């Protein structure tokens, strides 16, 4: 087998066209990896700079009314993961800036793609684009011509008379292309790691290893299926056309069709419906119970009872702060209900897409690539949830200060000192470790695993039972 692999490689290296193609591919991957890392580093520096600037503004706003500060707000900037340099995922479509303020939960806005005319359907030329689109097509061509070439040039009989089984010959061809593809993958990842500016954590190494596993499995699937078609289809054009058709269907067709189908199955509300429903629940109470005026009356009664006074003006605290916090907490419940539902629908959409991987292993690879790189939908939603959790702590601190900081009800001109605001910690988001989120990606791994087993089994079965001279 090793001899077949080495011979195959020797063939590519000694064939001018292939040699240049391989050199070009490795160079372009190296360049893409290098620029990818530089780009991510540059963008992350901008994010860090913006974060710092926004925090500086917060720390220099001077003595302010806490409620005014709640509207001054804070901003969460979604950081880039190290592997964004490999796979941008939803980075460029989903926005990076989230305004955190009182009363309202905003959306992450200002995506890169909303800031210019259309540039690229497949996104910036990141390593993942080459690894997902270009390498598979190269695998298809190399495997196909590796096998068909032996038949067309009439070497199969000569090889088999030497005692090598057809099964070994076919597997040798498939594996030689696969090893080449994995080598290219490894070179890409090593360049990524070497040019990476920060220290390499265990989590990053684990993620990198999983990237190798996911892509390596996919490459073997593609190679085996091409091998299979090269065996089964006697005509050169039908095998190649079929394989190219599969590539197009997997890469472009099925993801589009399945995403459309999934959206039809689990539709999301329109923005208007979503905000109207939130507003409705907030004013009239969730599901029509406990409207805002009743809630406020109940709060007032309880506070007056606790302090043993008859009017809010007699309270030793600022009642407005309590009202705002109570409203905030109710608003949080409303948000949890609606965003929870939204999150649930998106999760169902994602899971359905993952199950669609049983029809399309490319879908599983894409999902894993983004997931492992921390640039998928789940990572995006996780950031949004973490930012919201911070917003709640942030606003509560401000409302509490408003209520108990020393002012009295109706005293909107009262100001808290700058030191108080400085005590409130800034939002620091950390991408969760892969081990904590791995359970999300099991369907993708299972689908890829099943495809791998099935394609290898089929190739083994048919190459063992094929009559080599009838090909």
């Amino acid at each position, binding site marked *: 087998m090793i001899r077949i692999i080495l011979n195959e490689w020797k063939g590519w290296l000694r064939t001018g066209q292939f040699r240049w193609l391989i050199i070009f591919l490795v160079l372009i991957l190296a360049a*893409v990896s290098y*620029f*990818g890392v530089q780009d991510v580093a*540059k*963008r992350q520096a901008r994010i860090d700079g*913006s974060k710092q*600037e926004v925090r500086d*503004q917060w720390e220099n*706003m001077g003595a302010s009314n806490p409620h005014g500060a709640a509207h*001054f707000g804070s901003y969460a*900037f979604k950081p880039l993961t190290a592997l964004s340099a490999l796979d941008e*995922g*939803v980075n*460029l*479509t*989903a926005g*990076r*800036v989230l*305004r955190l303020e009182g009363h309202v939960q905003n*959306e992450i*806005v*200002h*995506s890169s793609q*909303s*800031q*210019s*005319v*259309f*540039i690229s*359907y497949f996104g*910036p*030329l*990141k390593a993942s*684009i080459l690894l997902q689109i270009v390498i598979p*097509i190269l695998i298809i*061509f190399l495997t196909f011509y590796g096998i068909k070439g032996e038949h067309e040039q009439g070497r199969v009989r000569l090889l088999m008379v030497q005692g090598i089984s057809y099964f070994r010959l076919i597997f040798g061809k498939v594996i030689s292309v696969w090893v080449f593809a994995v080598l290219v993958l490894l070179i890409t990842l090593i360049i990524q790691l070497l040019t990476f500016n920060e220290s390499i954590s265990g989590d990053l190494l684990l993620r990198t290893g999983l990237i190798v596993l996911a892509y390596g499995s996919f490459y073997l699937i593609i190679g085996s299926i091409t091998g299979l078609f090269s065996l089964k289809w006697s*005509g*050169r*054009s*039908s095998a*190649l056309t079929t394989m*190219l*058709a599969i590539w*197009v269907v997997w890469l*472009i*067709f099925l993801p*589009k069709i399945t*995403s459309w189908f999934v959206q039809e199955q689990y539709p999301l*509300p329109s*923005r*208007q419906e979503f*905000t109207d429903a939130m507003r409705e629940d907030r004013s009239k109470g969730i599901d029509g119970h406990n409207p805002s*005026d009743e809630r406020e009356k109940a709060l007032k009664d309880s506070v007056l009872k606790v302090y043993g006074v008859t009017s809010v003006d007699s309270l030793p605290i600022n009642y407005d702060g309590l009202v705002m916090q109570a409203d905030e907490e109710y608003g949080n419940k409303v948000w949890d209900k609606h965003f929870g539902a*939204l999150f649930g629908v*998106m999760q169902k*959409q*994602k899971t359905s*897409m993952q199950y669609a991987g049983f029809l399309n292993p490319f879908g599983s690879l894409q999902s894993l690539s*983004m997931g492992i790189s921390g640039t*998928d939908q789940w990572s995006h939603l996780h950031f949004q949830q973490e930012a919201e959790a911070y917003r709640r702590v942030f606003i509560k601190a401000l409302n509490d200060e408003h209520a108990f900081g020393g002012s009295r009800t109706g005293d909107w001109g009262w100001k808290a000192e700058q030191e108080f605001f400085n005590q409130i910690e800034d939002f620091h988001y950390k991408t969760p470790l892969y081990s904590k989120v791995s359970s999300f990606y099991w369907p993708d791994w299972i689908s890829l695993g099943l495809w791998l087993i099935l394609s290898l089994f089929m190739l083994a079965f048919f190459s063992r039972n094929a009559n080599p001279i009838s090909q």
Partner: protein
Amino acid sequence: MKKLIYFEWLHFSRGLARPIAVLLFLFAASFGIYNGFSSYHERVAQVQAIEESRAESHQEVFDWFESGTEGPEERPWVKISTPFWSMWYAKHQLIQNPDPLMVYNIGQSEHFGYYKRVSMWSTAFDDDLAAEIANPEFVQLGALDFSFVWIYLMPLLLIVLTYQVKGLEQDVGILPLLRIQQPYTGLWLLRRLMIIGVAMLLLLSLLVWIPELLFLKSSQTTGVFALWMIYASYLFFWLVLVFLVIYFGKGQADQALKMVGLWLLFAVAIPGVVNQYVLLRKPADLMLSLIEANRDGQQEIWDRPQDKVIEEALAVLPELQGSDAATNDSLLERQMINAAYRLVWSDYIAGVSNKIMEDQVGRNQLISATYWFNPVGGYHKWLNGISGTGHEASLRFRRKIQEATFSINQTLIMDEWKKRKMDRASFVEYAQMFESDRVMERE
């Protein structure tokens, strides 16, 4: 020629691969048109729902005017007879009307909001101008519209239909024979490709004109014709490429590999490199200037002394000069002063927004400069321009929002300073301020 067409038909029909590829393509194209059509209708329905909800809310205001009340009971501070509250309850919705050409080209529209409530505090980059709620992974996948099918799948179909032309003859060794029979191989090749090209053009015409007749009821003939021309020129571009590959080809495998290589180059690599270059040269704006404007800038304006702000308001809006309040400070009331602050603020924030938009135009120019070697990007921009579904249309919409905000503040200060008393008729006047702006944003 008849014979050539007949032989081309034989090439096409003997074997399953090519007919299946055409069927798949037809399915994708029809699906793309259906998708565009349903996106368009969703938007039309959404706009209608917004209009209805706005009309309901206006009815409420009419009731207040009729009953002589100043606003809702639970909001005693509302005074509908003042310009401020009338303007507030006019609930202006600026809408970028969905373009029927979306049926063919959804373009970038999924990235932008197309309706926005505009008040005296609005900016062109408010968070509520976000795109529709969508799964980010689906947005990233992009819309499957007809343009997508034509730009990315049509070349692949063309590859399937043509990679055997001359390649097959070369592989089976009958090319020398052919050369003896037909000394002008280039002409023979041209004729064969012309037949395939004309067939593709017919396919395009059917796919483009049938929806226009059936769904759009012949209402968009000029626009559809413009799209058809662009699609046809894109087909021509690929036919030229395919001709060159085949002319210099060395067999089926060589031709297939080169054609797929060209597809990868034009559809994936070049746009990808341009995208990466733009990211490095002009990374996405994190809107720090807007954040600063909304925080420090706004605060700084509100901290300015009243007389300075009045002076600035008079400079921004010289028409105010002749009013009584402008000549006599003692006539200035709180709401009149607030109107001046808002006017100055909206003038300021318009400047900030314009700067952001200028940056975006600069980014667009950087991208446009690549179109001579990045035709796919160029075609997308061209198509999006015609169907009003690109970034430039969204910028025009943002500009309108900014202008509307300024216009609201301008009207408010004029009326506040005149102490205008609002009634149903003047409220309707407010409510209809931007009716004429509801147009499509085609180039």
